[in-house]
């Protein structure tokens, strides 16, 4: 079964940087990148790799069985399979939009969620909106394939506000990245 495997890469990638870039300058660059490109760069994906794997396991989790595609202000909206926090759609924002005055983090954690309409798996980037007090509305905590901080991009507890002017957490969005 083909499954999302992020074990090594965090490490490998970071190793590449450890040598040539200090964490500070990474942060600095993130900051710049953010200012320079408010429209986030799209993800490079190898078409070959995009061939559909067997998604039946992901489709059978308790979350996936209950997921719906109509109301993105509910915790069981399909994209929220691994979200933890307040839904920006309930805070004056949108599914991929921060509420006014909040700042989207350039970094995020990710989830692979099944869209019940087509049964396909999609990669979702859970981008925190930062720099405002906690929204407090629509608190959700779904954890399909959510792991621990040693795989940071798959952990949904971390305050993912890097390179933003403040790390105060406001709400979380669920940005569709593409087919997984």
């Amino acid at each position, binding site marked *: 079964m083909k499954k*999302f*495997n*992020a074990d*090594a*890469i*965090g490490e490998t*990638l*970071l190793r*590449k*940087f450890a040598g*040539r*870039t200090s964490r500070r300058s*990474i942060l600095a660059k*993130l900051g710049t*990148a953010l200012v320079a*490109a*408010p*429209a*986030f*760069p799209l*993800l*490079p*994906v*190898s*078409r*070959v*790799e995009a061939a559909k794997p067997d998604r039946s396991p992901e489709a059978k989790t308790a979350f996936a069985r209950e997921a719906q595609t109509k109301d993105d202000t509910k915790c069981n909206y399909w994209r929220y399979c691994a979200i933890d926090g307040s839904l920006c759609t309930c805070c*004056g*924002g*949108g*599914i*991929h*939009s*921060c*509420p*006014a*005055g909040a*700042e989207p983090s350039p970094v*995020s*954690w*990710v989830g692979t969620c099944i869209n019940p309409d087509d049964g396909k798996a999609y*990669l979702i*980037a859970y*981008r925190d*909106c930062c720099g*405002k*007090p*906690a*929204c*407090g*509305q629509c608190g959700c905590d779904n954890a399909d394939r959510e792991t621990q901080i040693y795989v*940071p*991009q798959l952990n949904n507890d971390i305050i993912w506000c890097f*390179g933003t002017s403040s790390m105060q957490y406001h709400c979380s969005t669920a*940005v*569709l*990245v*593409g*087919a*997984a």
Partner: protein
Amino acid sequence: MSVTAMKRTIALSTAALSLLSIALSQPALAEDATTATVPEAETSDVMKAEKPQNHWFYVNGGWNVDGTSIFDAKTGKMKGMVNTSSSADLAFDPTGKYYYVSETIWSKGNRGTRQDMVSVYDTAEMKLLTEIVIPDRIIVGERKQNFIVSDDGKWGFVYNLSPASSVNIVDLTKRKFVKTVEVPGCATLIPNPGVGFSALCSDGSMATVAIASAKPQITRTAPFFSATTDPIFENFGYDKKRGLAVMLSYTGLVYTAKLGATPTLSAPFSIQSVAGYSSAETKPLDTAWYPGGRQPSALHGPSGHLFVLMHLGEFWSHKQAGTEVWEIDVAAKKVVRRHVLKEPMGHIEVTQDAEPMLFLNDEKGDGVILDAKTGEEKHKIEHAGAGIISVTDPS
């Protein structure tokens, strides 16, 4: 793991993505990004806020909770949030361009350097425009009377207790602190158009501060209430168009003050007596319907109707949540309606438009939006906020 698999996994990690976006500037890694892109991918963005609407409620998170949430009375949906820190006071630019937040922040949260300021946010982007440094301010929260903006939007008045009473005057056009006026024994700031501001005092008088002259002039009315036996709730109603302040006492006496250089006070009337009861007493062992709560009443300017949270009890229960809302026609001295509430509520506010809506919240922070005319529940909002409720006044 194969190189392609490797690439794919990179593609799957947005944490990696961010690094990748840096990687692009890193020759050694550049080739990693030379693959096709997913067309349907969304990009993150930020919403713009509408101009403040007169059917919006601004609900403070409450004691020790940051943020003031904005709810649309028509949909019950949250429209956004104003960055208010703990015990901050929120006021509005009458033209709808700015939010003003009077707040005190320590440089290290529970310690460090104290910083008092009026923070200015634009209402469209909701970005911080500037911080107007002020010398001091009272820290209490749960009040709208400690930070008011003059009807013309030119002046901000910040109440201060340290522990002497004074008011910091802020020029909102120049965005700078101007001066501090001592107002001994007075508090509860009331806008006084063209004059400056008025305030209620511990001797039962209303003080008026004329700010035009270099040395502000303080005048006082004769005492008209007892600040210790039957105090007037600070939470007064203000009718901008008529220049009226409508005030309510612990026993349920309604006073109106016509504002001006020398405010004139009307004779009070008892809301219980106009409801057909005997008027409520200050003496013990006397049960009656009393006004109460932390924001016990709200005035609808256009109609001149006062909405009051009422509960059955004894005197000194002035903080008790209300089980009914009494709608009072102040001019006609009549109780128009009584709405029974499903849950006791501690705060009440009303929109200032032609179709007034009520927002009420309880200690747990759950809120309801009622049609002010029928009392019908339109929306229920969990975790709306447990604090003071504000509305903008377009009049």
